[in-house]
């Protein structure tokens, strides 16, 4: 193997790729070649670093210089100055990674300090398209150990002892699921990875597949051995082209090395793995709907029981776990369940990856030990709210979850605490909202999503969510009545109880949680006909400020004669007459008319 004096690590996650990290890589490689440094410096494109806010990110080792917001035109300078002459380009360093003339290591940056990277530890470190790099970081050792030293029941017991719970949202005990599948009486069994990450603010699973695809493949092979399966599927969203491509490369490489396919590690164990693409249906994240989709049908859920462990894919016993759940498995096998239990809380051991977004300084991907408080994530890791705005709410669990308020910011993040307060862990979306976000509008946004994504099989979800949306639209348009709020609440509770699958059962959560914590905002829309944050445009009123010079242009332009006032005196708008057409604003030469 060649030895290089420097390594240039470039983030190849979707966020950084969207801001040209692929072109930066290309240019970097060319420039390095031009300077005859290609025998000395190696360029590696890795998975997501997590700190998307600072992207595109380039790190140069051995110095550990953390360059952020790198542009194409900066490549020359990095190559000429840093790589050729050994002078670090201070101008491009991430602000926090450099203080008092000294470089700080990546782990000392606030954003990373409180994180504990287990699932993501290879992301941003190895080249996901090179199986040898994964193997160099103990990759496939867990599979080797399992196949040569452990019986299937030993594996299941180890996972059970670890207390690992499903990271897809439900939090069901993974070991228990494996045991149920192991015990099922079925001639053929399947292992399925649910990579249909549908929460519209979450991209953890995608980042894992983009940054460390082999971890998932290895875990699936371990699971297959444990439950007695020889075939597996990864069901992944077609919207994730980079992840799909890297996963396919990883599967091909693993096959080539004999780590997938027939007679793995010469133990006689066979495991075949195939990718199946979703096609844009949120409901397919529900396991029975996902199974229908792999079977080539409309992705509609079925009644449970029978559970997939009994009758799953093609009516055979099937084990379905989510990407992040799988990514924990090799670590637990190698380091043991005791090690795993030391992290996190008693009932929720381990870590959880969150996609932090919205009104927060450090947008990105974070992995924290369970039990970390919301405050630590939002302020210590996330860096707080930008533009000196006030924190208002944090939304977890996406369309199935709820909003938690500032009063609850000391809540520890674990499965039980979040559901106690009316939200849920969900798959890991965490969206921060500030004082400018209208909570009624946010509820409307999520219900609009579920109406779109409801598969239509059961009435409570198909009809109920539609009616909820109509009520919410009525309220945000300023036509709501007080009884609408009560109807909304009662409807939400009915849908929750009567729906067939998880989608419908959790769909009312955004409404119920905002009603619980922000009822006064609903009431302001209905009683006062105002939107306190100024988000709902139909509820805005027009005001004339002291900037008014009394030029009369507005009153002449007003089609309903709602503006009164004498020449050279401040005019006034009669809000009962005003139809909010905006004509006055476009006519005013002094910007003296505002909406609020």
């Amino acid at each position, binding site marked *: 193997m060649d030895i290089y004096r420097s390594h240039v690590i470039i983030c190849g996650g979707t*966020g950084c790729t969207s801001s040209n990290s692929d072109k930066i890589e290309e240019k970097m490689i060319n420039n390095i070649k031009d300077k005859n440094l290609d025998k000395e410096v190696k360029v590696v494109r890795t998975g997501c670093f997590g700190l998307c806010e600072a*992207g595109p990110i380039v790190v140069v080792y051995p110095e550990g210089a953390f360059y952020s917001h790198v542009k194409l035109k900066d490549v020359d300078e990095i190559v000429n100055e840093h790589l050729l002459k050994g002078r670090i380009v201070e101008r491009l360093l991430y602000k926090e990674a450099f203080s008092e003339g000294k470089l700080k290591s990546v782990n000392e940056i606030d954003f990373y300090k409180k994180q504990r990277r287990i699932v993501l530890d290879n992301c941003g470190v190895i080249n996901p398209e090179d199986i040898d790099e994964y193997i160099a970081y103990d990759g496939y050792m867990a599979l080797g150990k399992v196949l040569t030293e452990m019986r299937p029941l030993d594996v299941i017991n180890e996972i059970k002892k670890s207390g690992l719970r499903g990271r897809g949202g439900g939090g069901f005990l993974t070991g228990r699921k494996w045991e149920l599948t192991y015990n099922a009486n079925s001639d053929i069994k399947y292992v399925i990875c649910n990579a249909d990450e549908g929460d519209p603010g979450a991209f953890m699973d995608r980042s894992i597949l983009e940054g460390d695809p082999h971890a998932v493949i290895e875990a699936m092979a371990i699971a297959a051995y444990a439950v007695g399966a020889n075939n597996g599927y990864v069901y992944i969203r077609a919207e994730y082209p980079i992840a799909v491509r890297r996963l396919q490369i990883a599967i091909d490489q693993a096959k080539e090395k004999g780590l997938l396919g027939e007679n793995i590690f010469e133990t006689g164990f066979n495991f075949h793995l195939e990718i199946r693409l979703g*096609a*844009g249906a949120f409901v397919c994240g529900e396991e029975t709907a996902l199974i229908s989709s792999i079977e*080539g049908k409309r992705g509609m859920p079925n009644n449970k029981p029978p559970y997939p462990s009994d009758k799953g894919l093609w009516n055979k016993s099937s084990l379905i776990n989510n990407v992040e759940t799988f990514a924990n498995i090799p670590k637990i096998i190698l380091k043991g369940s005791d090690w795993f239990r030391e992290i996190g809380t008693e009932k929720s051991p381990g870590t959880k990856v969150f996609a932090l977004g919205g009104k927060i300084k450090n947008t990105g991907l974070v992995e924290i030990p369970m039990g970390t408080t919301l405050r630590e994530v939002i302020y210590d890791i996330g860096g707080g709210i930008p533009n000196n705005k006030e924190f208002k709410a944090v939304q977890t669990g996406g369309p199935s979850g709820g909003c938690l308020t500032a009063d609850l910011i000391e809540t520890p993040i674990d499965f039980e605490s979040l559901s106690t307060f009316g939200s849920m862990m969900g798959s890991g979306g965490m969206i921060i909202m500030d004082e400018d976000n209208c909570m009624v509008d946010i509820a409307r946004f999520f219900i609009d999503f579920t109406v779109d994504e409801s598969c239509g099989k059961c009435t409570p979800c198909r009809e109920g969510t539609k009616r909820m949306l109509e009520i919410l639209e009525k309220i945000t348009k300023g036509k709501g009545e007080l009884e609408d709020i009560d109807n909304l609440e009662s409807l939400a509770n009915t849908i929750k109880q009567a729906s067939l699958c998880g989608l419908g059962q959790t769909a009312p959560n955004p409404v119920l949680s905002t009603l619980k914590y922000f009822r006064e905002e609903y009431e302001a829309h209905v009683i006062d006909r105002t939107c306190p944050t100024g988000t709902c445009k139909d509820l805005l009123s027009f005001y004339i400020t002291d900037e008014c010079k009394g030029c009369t242009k507005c009153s002449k332009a007003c089609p309903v004669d709602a503006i009164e006032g004498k020449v050279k005196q401040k005019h006034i708008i009669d809000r009962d007459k005003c139809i909010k057409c905006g004509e006055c604003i476009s006519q005013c030469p002094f910007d003296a008319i505002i909406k609020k």
Partner: protein
Amino acid sequence: MEFKFDVKKNSKKIDELKKVITENKNKKGPLMPILHQAQKIFGYLPIEIQKIISEELNVPLAEVYGVATFYAQFSLIPKGKYTIGVCLGTACYVKGAQDIVDRIKEQLDLEVGGTTKDRKFSLQATRCIGACGLAPVMTVNEDVYGKLNPDEVPDIIKKYK
């Protein structure tokens, strides 16, 4: 919108599709992978193509149509030369993505899910594309535009006109 699928002009592509069908026929659950490939070949799934798939796989057309219409990614109408996607994931939404959609609709006189008459632009509201660090985000085919404000929309569209 009105359009006609020309079977003659597409005969080469149809041969290609038939090859794909033969390759996947004996797989378990072949319909979804074939529809994906068909959409890649033709850009959309006209009824003529669904009929071919139905015949070759020996599955009722109703079932093929049912699946094709169930999933948001399969399109039954031709797409424009440029597909504009605006991310309406939660992170982008709280940062004002709706205003971006509204501005594009106004600029191109286009509804979400539609294609302009000259078949130049299609507009899609996409779910999270995972570039939350760049919110709000829009894409035009492969190009990504981030940290947008609505006033930048006209200039971006102009680039592709």
